[in-house]
């Protein structure tokens, strides 16, 4: 039987210790980051919308921002019983979907800022992701099978492709 699907909507953060199929759909400038404990199968995914939380506003959903979202993902994975040293990470997103129009490449840079934030935060924790697929002008939908560890990315232009296998720590060449 197929694992139940868990939708990871905008600014959502989901963690599960049961077999599941994460579905993070419609990542335009947003980034979907997944972590999977390779032996216990405990996994979590966050749908990040913005690089950092506002200093002057309370954080309503930690998953919305790269800084609070990644910290919360780590905390929730460990709280669920995942072993930090066995968690494999992958992420995708950060596109600029509005590719037509005057100076389209420079006017909306949330995607780019999200990519930089996720890169820097993960590097700061000494984490090297198994694979990532970022930037460009196509929105992505990311699915993660927590049983096989396979991460797939789907776009309008290229259809669905396997990005990596988190269990085997293996990136699939594009």
């Amino acid at each position, binding site marked *: 039987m197929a694992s139940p699907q868990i939708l990871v*909507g*905008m*600014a959502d953060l989901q963690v599960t210790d049961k077999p599941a199929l994460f579905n993070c*759909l*419609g*990542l*335009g*400038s*947003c980034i979907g980051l997944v972590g999977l404990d390779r032996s216990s199968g405990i996994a979590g995914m966050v749908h990040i*919308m*913005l690089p950092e939380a506002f200093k002057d506003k*309370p954080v*309503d*959903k930690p998953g*919305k921002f790269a800084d609070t979202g990644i910290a919360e993902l780590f905390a929730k994975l460990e709280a669920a019983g995942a072993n930090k040293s066995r968690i494999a990470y992958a992420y995708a997103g950060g*596109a*600029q*979907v*509005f*590719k*037509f*129009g*005057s100076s*389209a490449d420079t*006017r*909306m840079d*949330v*995607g780019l800022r*999200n990519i930089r934030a996720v890169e820097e935060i993960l590097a700061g924790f000494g984490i090297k992701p198994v694979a990532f697929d970022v930037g460009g*002008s*196509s*929105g*992505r*939908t990311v699915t993660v099978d927590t049983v096989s560890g396979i991460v797939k990315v789907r776009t*309008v*232009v290229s259809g669905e492709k396997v990005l990596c296998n988190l269990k085997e720590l293996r990136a699939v060449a594009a």
Partner: protein
Amino acid sequence: MADNSNSLGLLQSSAVKELANIGLGNAMTALSNLTGRYFDMTVPNIDTVNLDQIPELIDDPMGVSVGIYMPVEGDVCGHMAFLWPWSAGTSIWKMLVGSAPETPEGIDELYASTTLEIGNIIGSSFLNAISDMASLKLHATPPLFSLDHTASICSSVVAEAQLSEVTALFIETEIFEIENEASDVRGFFLFIPNKDGLDRIFDNLGIREAA
């Protein structure tokens, strides 16, 4: 948080509906003048929504949409976006250009500039209506457009708007060419004024309701 109370009073909601009808009605007149065909538009539904709720309002998140995005500047700043399903996009291109691309990859300069021009017309007409009625100056900046999964377009607009705003006007639209039943184009229009922007508009209309 007060930010979450988005519901409009009765007076405000009818004023917003009126604004949308007049604004988008002006847009259809402009589109008709441009094409020599007669277009009309209805607004079956309009609501203020929290930005986080927008994805829940989309019927088919993985469907491909034509999305036009325009930042708004002037007395009230903010964002505007207009989305049609791909099938509606192809009918619009067929009406305006005489042909349509088979797939999203088939978009060329002609289709792109046509789409951007429609964005300009609809956006400016909508903002002009608000400007006239509320005695404020709102103007559109050059549009951008995207062909992608509806959810990707929406989340990108919402992320951009999240930097400063919490509430959007979600306006369902139906565009149709009169005398052509098959030309029905369903889409939706998002108007996301900056924080306090809606209040400013209501103030100027003299219908701000006591909190």
